């Protein structure tokens, strides 16, 4: 999916994550987390896998995690990407 506009999904409430995306000519991902020390690698893996499944190869993606479980991080990344894209979600790929 191509990110064509700036978009946001999620929240900064506990157990959630705020994901922001914006167009860019290469993929840049930034992850901040309240549990970075303990789960940083796991969160990074979830974010990267989700972007890969969505076919996002370009764009800024920033994830501000407040201790969200994997499913919520996946959902917030998807939400921000869908909002920042003009393409329809293809659930069979996710």
């Amino acid at each position, binding site marked *: 999916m191509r990110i064509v506009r700036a978009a946001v*999904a*999620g*929240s900064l*409430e*506990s*157990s*959630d*994550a705020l994901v922001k995306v914006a167009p860019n000519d290469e993929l840049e991902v930034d992850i901040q987390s309240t549990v970075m020390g303990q789960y940083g690698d796991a969160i990074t893996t979830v974010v990267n896998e989700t972007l890969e499944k969505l076919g996002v190869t370009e764009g800024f993606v920033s994830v501000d995690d407040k201790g*969200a*479980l*994997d*499913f*919520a991080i*996946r*959902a*917030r990344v*998807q*939400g921000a990407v*869908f*909002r920042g894209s003009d393409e329809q*979600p293809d*659930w*069979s790929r996710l």
Partner: protein
Amino acid sequence: MLFVPGSNASWLSTVHVYGADTVMFDLEDSVALREKDTARILVREALMSPIWKDVEVCVRVNAIDTPFFRPDLEAIVPAGVAIVRLPMVRDADMVRELDRVLTEIEEKCGREVGSTKCMAAVESASGVVNAVQIAKASSRMVAIALAAYDYMIDMHTVRGTAADESELFYARCAVLHAARVAGIPCYDVVYSDVNDEEGFLREIGIIKRLGFDGKSLVNPRQIEPLHNAYAPTEAEVDRAKRVIEAADKAEAEGLGVVSLDGKMVDAPIVASAYRTVRLAELSGTRR
């Protein structure tokens, strides 16, 4: 059945620990218009998350005449939702339309056709009047529920404080009868004032006496009092176990008639005994 706002990641991540019989992820009223899209995704991911695999999860989708209805189903059916709760059901055609869309999506995503169950929420005068047809409209129907807010407006009245709750009496009876005719459970309205435990317990008393199978809940705090009110007493459980023993014995001996303590026990009593034991397994015995 505990309501959980589908846009709230925190609740979706924690509520499974409270022990509700069924949890309902809501995509309808508790979700702001702006979050319809992301709540749908969050609920879909929650459904596929291991933390919810041992809980019966129902998802309340948006009403059939909204633009969110179809996308809601497209997202959650492939994720394996057990039950879809359709709000604002006015007639049997709406249930049949839900059935048709579910079939279409099940076929497309390779799930067994008919595996997604549904329940209808009746929230209007026409829904109440058509309750029997609604309850019998599809083999997917596993429950029917009454919801009061829009129904009160429809009836030109409001929820009052009268102890008998007479403003809901007809609707409760009508929907309950429909459920019994169709052979499916029936759930009562939510009690939204979480801090009014007295009122909540009074309402439980009324619906239990009428015969409701349960109630929709808005807060985990309401689970325990509801379970307790519905839980049978130890004496009731003992008696039920003895009835079941007698029935098993009669069957083993090939007898058509069950007797206990010298009295004949009718089939409905045996069925009721099974329900009591099952309820005790789920809710424990009453405090």
